[in-house]
């Protein structure tokens, strides 16, 4: 397994080997599926749309409906305007969504199609909407694409129509699973605060089996809600990379103050999320949540010896692994390698933010580790080969490294293609942290059981 990965590092500048990221459009497609009655549309070659639908359908085990502009060589030479106009007409005539959310691809970006102008020049049926986001695949990653489509929702739809802001919060959950979005909504509801979550793929990509196929399941943020985000008192962006751009745009556009927090993975990040809501809305944290928190901390204390001092490698999307790093630190573990494929800054803005944030967490815990943004799994594997770890946490692609190096592996993040409960069961909030404890604990203890001699094989651990 991965036999050709050498221990020795060579300087590389030709690209990536075994990526820890993918391209913008899939993130845009995922975000667009979080609008109620929305059909994502990929403006490019058919292959893009096909690959993204394939990957989303595999991760969620749900239909991932989307259309494409089906570029041919002619469109690539003369521009894709005619294709998009035809697509808009056909999408509304055949699939009748309320919203068509167009994202671009490296093809349509390279030839410079001006999507706003094409949309403006196309007849859209009464009451229907076409929105768009520019998502060139040669910048950022799928997380950037998610962020850009979420920004598109704000720029097309958010409006400040009231003199005074409403007692409601906008929450941008970031590129997380529907189960995580449900959990974030549950926490907010328990705080007694009205919320608009956008995008919201719960009820879309975790829709129930009913014996009936519906093109647009019940979930997703509604267009009226998206308009109303401009009237909210606060926007909480969960995750710097997937969520903060849209929140900042909303602040500029509609004067809704924006606060960016970590994806609420683990005790500290969940505490911070609830505290932000508590202080902004002057609402006390209810006992139910205090009880959940207490239960979580109780288990952490009771089982700390399963975790303490274990060396961990974590890879995946920056917002998720920032939360994961903080959480494993709170268990006394040592996240010695933290790597994301996504560039660790903003497009056209400052770089190195990711490395700085993780490095300061490690510093505080007195841990020496390697942190890398815009990295790849080839590099992560080499680090592990040189100084092994006790546990690997990441998406499904990590299983090859885990097998090659014979290390326990916990699947968290996107995509997970070989297991099935991740869309439903959250990793955020106190409940999500309990689930992570179970996943990590089971992986470590199953390994201890496997490796123990008969004389050391324990009934109670």
């Amino acid at each position, binding site marked *: 397994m991965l036999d050709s990965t050498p221990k020795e590092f060579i300087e590389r500048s*030709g690209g990536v080997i075994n990526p820890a990221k993918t391209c913008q459009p899939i993130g845009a497609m995922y975000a667009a599926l979080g609008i109620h009655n929305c059909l994502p549309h990929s403006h490019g070659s058919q292959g893009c749309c096909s690959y993204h639908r394939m990957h989303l359908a595999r991760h969620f085990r749900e239909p991932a409906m989307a259309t494409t502009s089906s570029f041919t060589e002619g469109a690539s030479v003369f521009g894709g305007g005619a294709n998009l106009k035809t697509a*808009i007409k*056909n999408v509304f005539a055949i699939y009748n969504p309320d919203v068509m959310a167009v994202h671009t691809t490296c093809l349509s970006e390279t030839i410079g199609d001006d999507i706003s102008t094409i949309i403006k020049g196309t007849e859209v049926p009464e009451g229907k909407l076409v929105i768009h986001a520019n998502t060139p695949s040669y910048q950022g990653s799928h997380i950037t694409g998610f962020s850009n489509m979420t920004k598109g929702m704000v720029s097309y739809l958010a409006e400040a129509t009231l003199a005074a802001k409403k007692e409601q919060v906008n929450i941008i959950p970031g590129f997380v699973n529907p189960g995580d979005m449900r959990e974030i909504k549950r926490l907010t509801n328990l705080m007694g605060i009205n919320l608009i979550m956008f995008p919201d793929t719960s009820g879309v990509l975790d829709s129930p089996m009913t*014996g009936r196929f519906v093109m647009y399941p019940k979930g997703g943020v509604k267009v009226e809600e998206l308009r109303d985000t401009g009237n909210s008192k606060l926007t909480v962006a969960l995750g710097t990379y997937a969520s903060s751009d849209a929140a900042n745009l909303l602040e500029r556009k509609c004067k809704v103050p924006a606060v960016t927090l970590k994806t609420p993975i683990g005790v500290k990040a969940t505490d911070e999320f609830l505290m932000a809501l508590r202080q902004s809305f002057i609402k006390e944290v209810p006992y139910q949540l205090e009880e959940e928190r207490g239960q979580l901390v109780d288990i952490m204390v009771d089982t700390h010896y399963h975790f303490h001092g274990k060396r961990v490698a974590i890879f995946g999307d920056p917002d998720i692994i920032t939360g994961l790093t903080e959480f494993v630190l709170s268990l006394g573990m040592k996240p010695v390698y933290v790597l994301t494929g996504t560039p660790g800054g903003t497009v056209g803005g400052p770089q190195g933010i990711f490395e700085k944030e993780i490095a300061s967490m490690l510093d505080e815990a007195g841990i020496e580790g390697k942190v890398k943004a815009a990295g790849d799994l080839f590099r992560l594997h080499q680090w592990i080969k040189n100084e092994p770890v006790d546990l690997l946490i990441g998406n499904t*692609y990590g299983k090859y490294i885990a097998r090659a190096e014979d290390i326990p592996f916990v699947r968290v993040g996107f995509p997970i293609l070989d297991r099935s409960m991740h869309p439903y069961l959250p990793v955020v909030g106190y409940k999500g942290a309990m689930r992570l404890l179970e996943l990590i604990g089971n992986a470590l203890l199953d390994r201890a059981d496997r490796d123990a001699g008969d004389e050391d094989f324990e009934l109670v651990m």
Partner: protein
Amino acid sequence: MAVDEKVLEEILNSYPAKVKRTRKKHILLRDSSLDRQEIEANTRTIPGIMTNRGCAFAGCKGVVLGPIKDMVHIVHGPIGCAYYSWLTRRNKAIPEEPGKNYLTYCVSTDMQESDIVFGGEKKLARMIDEVVEIFKPNAITISATCPVGLIGDDIQAVARAARQKHGLSITAYNCEGYKGVSQSAGHHIANNGLLEWIVGQGDWEEPPGKYTINMLGEYNIGGDSWEVERVLKELGYHVQATLTGNGSYEDIKNAHVAELNLVQCHRSINYIADMLEKKYGTPWLKVNFIGIRATCESLRNMALYFGDEDLIRRTEEVIARELAEIEPQLEPYRKICAGKTTFCFVGGSRGHHYQGLYEEIGIQTTLAGYEFAHRDDYEGREVIPDIKPDADSKNIPELHVVPDERRYRPKLSRERTEELKDKIPLSNYQGMNITMKDGSLIVDDMNHYETEEFIRTLKPDIFSSGIKDKYVPHKMGLPSKQLHNYDYSGPYAGFRGAVNFARDISMSFATPTWNFIDPPWKSRPLLEGTIEKPSQEGEA
């Protein structure tokens, strides 16, 4: 319910007029009384109609080149295309030289905005150098993604320079996603490159043994080719090269020595089969190792081609033994499947191949079609001269192949060729339509709307297609089988594969999980009781 012209018309009436006109030509109601039923295929998909089709890159790197195990396949472009074609197709492989299996590696130049603006050739050259240093592969391919062609990166020049620098086979494929109208364009581009730059590069002049064959268009999904080779090896065939499942550069470069080329997936590999015949005088035989009868027939046709009495006799013995082994295993599954119907909408050839296997376990195909086929895959190769090239097909270069001066050797005399052509599909494919029952539907490039409507109308018992439409029927309570990647099972080819298939299909009917769709409270009222007749005394 069957579909007739009227029902079909009603379904198509929901389309805008232009879409209806186009889509109508892609749909046939099979009628064997007609001399010829022409279908439109391999033409542009209409934007916005939710096709299942992919692109030229997917067909070239994803399908044809990607499975070659001892080559490092570099993708030149932004990250996505390399990422999505990394380990997603279940083309299995075992390395022949220790460590020389690069299928678990995804190598991308990960083009950034500056590369798009200033060109990516230098970055690609650096990536080649790094790949040579790290992996020391036997050969390297470079596949282009959309922006490469648009910004004018000359990947052929980069490959040429790298060949000289490293003394390795480093070849480049201009399979930008916008070329052609589907994956099919990419198959053609990959076929051209393999024939021009790789097949024949080996120095063998003679086949290494008797009955040396190549297996073309077999991708070893779920281990299919291993099950077929188990039987072929026992019969004494030497499989020189498989294109491309579990295939290797080392084997393919000597593929010119084969005495016969087998063609499994006609769509993706017929170009190279045809060109091998022109260049080396080696005919090809259309085989089908999906289904028991088809497997037996393919084995018999191969034996007949070589015409060796001993081989013919041993073929019958092996067939008899294999049938005796699998028939009893199939029986319980046939009981579960009997009388059911299916849709079979797959890529290039499986839409045809799986119908026979379905039939053998008692399941009729009421609708079939291909995602990216050409007219010849439906109507047979005799229509090829009638297919008019259009703007999209003209963009794919046709190689002009001439007989190899040194190595061209007709494997059969003209008389023998003519004699065999009457008996076996030698260098010929009759297409799918001829095997389909009257009244069944043939749909090219079926889209989501048609999928939903045809399921509603024809009510199949199981749906077979790929991952993008798998969960649509599931939501309707209808079993759905992925015939691109076998739902992570297999092999389904050959004799033992048929049993695996029957087991998996039966499982999708027999699973108790379908029984829980309706919650009990949907069928039972909240309040239960009887209304008693008021007593006489109660009345005032």
